[in-house]
């Protein structure tokens, strides 16, 4: 549950120290690659360009969605509109049922996590197999992803070795290549047997009706080409106007995510096989999902979060995220981007206290390839939370008290003297905020004489 963030993060840090170690190590490595990837190009210019393209697209989203739909249909693909998660699930299950699908292979997709697709498919009696290696590991463990890009990066090699030894009969000390080969054996057969492949999309190009997918493992290429039916579940903010825009975004997204100049595989999908017997699926479906996005778009400030390309760069740069990984946040979108997107998608009330799960250090904004002003958006959500009374009353009272004292210099000086004396005696522990402070830290030591006193006496 999102509302348990503070308690859940404490539990993870205390009870699962391996998570902090694995997440810190992996995200620092990703972040360093991102810095190198940015340094090889004029990243600031690229980022400003990308911000502009996304802003334009979001401003004219109705136009580009209509254009994309028309192009996709002309290409022979089928387009479906889902207002919310339930509609999206119904559409996909309807398609699967109509084609008597028994088994589905999936490419890594955050939006299908967002709409809880896998449990719904399983309930409908359909076998679901995740084919991204990290997602496959998590499916065996029955865990949600911890990171947008590296869903299992909170796991250690040891944990995967143990899991695979038990489930796939690999040697207990199998190296990463051995483990990947074992998963590949299983997944090859799954690809061949599957009736339907389900993916998300990194981008949807309006001009040509092209679903673009970036990956490094090749599993998405197989998911979209081997089964009879391919379903791409696509958030409506994924639009780009033209193929030339895509050329830039493919490179920028890869650099932001992993520092690569471009992903190892880029699949561009425009429709089904032209003739029976040609390569490619018989049917291609694109499910366009709103699920709160138009509400975010209508929000005075939060709409900027819709520029997000789900690269994970903000998570990798975030020292808050690094302590716990994604599970502490309680929602599929975690870390800095989750803390600004979730209040928009779920409603602020249901996303509390995520806007406060940040020290506002600003590392995320520097990393973001589309220049989402994450700290400023966090502050906007905090303002709304304060205005709607969603924060603890003691905190509001304390800040109102501070403002009253700080606008009356005489009172401020008096309060300062009393506060310092209380602090010196350790009595400050009884104050609500300092009590929390003292849970994990020694109390601060007040100066024996305030600066004001020193100034009055004369500073030599």
């Amino acid at each position, binding site marked *: 549950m999102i509302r348990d963030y503070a308690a859940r993060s404490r539990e993870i840090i205390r009870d699962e120290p391996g998570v902090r170690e694995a997440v810190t190590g992996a995200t620092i490595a990703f972040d360093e690659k991102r810095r190198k990837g940015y340094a090889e190009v004029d990243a600031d210019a690229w980022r400003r360009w990308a911000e502009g393209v996304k802003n334009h697209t979001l401003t004219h989203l109705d136009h580009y969605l209509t254009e994309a739909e028309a192009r996709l249909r002309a290409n022979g693909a089928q387009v479906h509109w889902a207002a919310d998660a339930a509609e999206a699930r119904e559409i996909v299950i309807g398609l699967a049922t109509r084609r008597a699908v028994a088994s589905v292979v999936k490419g890594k997709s955050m939006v299908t996590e967002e709409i809880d697709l896998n449990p719904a498919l399983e309930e409908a009696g359909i076998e679901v197999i995740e084919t991204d290696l990290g997602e496959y590991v998590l499916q065996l463990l029955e865990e949600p992803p911890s990171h947008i890009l590296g869903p299992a990066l909170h796991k250690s090699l040891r944990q995967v070795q143990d899991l695979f030894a038990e489930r796939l009969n690999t040697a207990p000390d199998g190296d990463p290549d051995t483990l990947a080969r074992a998963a590949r054996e299983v997944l090859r057969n799954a690809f061949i047997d599957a009736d339907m492949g389900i993916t998300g999309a990194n981008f949807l190009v309006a001009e040509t009706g092209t679903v673009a997918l970036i990956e490094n493992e090749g599993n998405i290429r197989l998911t979209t080409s081997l089964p009879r039916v391919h379903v791409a579940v696509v958030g409506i903010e994924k639009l780009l106007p033209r193929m030339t825009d895509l050329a830039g975004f493919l490179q920028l997204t890869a650099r932001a995510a992993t520092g690569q100049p471009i992903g190892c595989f880029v699949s561009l999908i425009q429709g089904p096989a032209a003739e029976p017997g040609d390569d490619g699926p018989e049917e291609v479906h694109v499910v366009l999902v709103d699920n709160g996005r138009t509400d975010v778009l209508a929000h005075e400030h939060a709409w900027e979060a819709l520029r997000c390309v789900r690269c994970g760069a903000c998570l990798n740069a975030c020292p808050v995220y690094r302590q716990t990984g994604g599970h502490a946040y309680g929602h599929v979108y975690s870390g800095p981007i989750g803390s600004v997107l979730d209040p928009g998608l779920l409603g602020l009330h249901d996303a509390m206290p995520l806007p406060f799960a940040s020290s506002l250090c600003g590392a995320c904004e520097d990393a973001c390839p589309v220049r989402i002003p994450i700290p400023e958006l966090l502050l906007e959500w905090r303002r709304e939370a304060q205005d709607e009374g969603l*924060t603890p009353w003691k905190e509001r009272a304390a800040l109102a008290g501070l403002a009253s004292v700080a*606008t009356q210099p005489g009172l401020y000086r008096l309060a300062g003297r009393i506060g310092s004396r209380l602090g010196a005696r350790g009595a400050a522990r009884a104050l609500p905020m300092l009590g929390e402070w003292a849970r994990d830290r020694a109390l601060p030591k007040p100066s024996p004489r305030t600066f004001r006193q020193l100034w009055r006496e004369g500073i030599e």
Partner: protein
Amino acid sequence: MKVAFFVTCLADHYFADAAADAVRLLHHLGCEVGFPPDQTCCGQPAYNAGRTREALRMAEHTLDVLAGTDAVVLPSGSCATMVKKFYPRLAGESGNRVSRATALAERTWDLAEFIVRRLGVTRLGDGLAGRRVAVHQGCHALRELRLETEPTTLLEGAGAEVVPWEAQEECCGFGGLFSVKMTAVSAAMADRKLETLPDVDWVVSGDGGCVLHLDGRSRARGDAIEFVHLATALWRGVN
């Protein structure tokens, strides 16, 4: 040059000696230092909590107190950022006398920023010769004011050896209200700083908030690390 010294509430009560060292340093560099007596809190705690109305009241008070000053210098990158970056934003959003906030922003400086960028001084003395220090860069100083090199330049300009620190640019986890709302994560962030700290005599920072938090955490862990405010380190460097 005439300088109005804005001590900040944390430095007034917890780093009084460092604030006095900042004044000594400014005197030494030829500044005439004044202390507007009615100054209080810049309002950042309310601003970061999303309490715009309270933040605006405190900003208005500070704008009144600092009216008519020449340069304003603060011994805190974070509070300097509040005045330089967030006052104009607050004023803009409330449609409230933006020009006054912008004018104050333009003449307000963090201590290290003022010495390097305004006074053009990078050499202070040899007082820190033989001393190994690590620098903790406060996030506002680093990412809002872009003071990426100034503290290091000044410390080296006073003879110190600044030892590279893997987590030098990482947030310490203070974050004001964050440190009491998300206290476990905040403490774990401090641990990351402390776990990666190289062998040094001092950890130096230009932000008292970060130091209170890092020092509090390190004492709770039983570490013996000496934290020194940048103003004190630099004044020691002069002598």
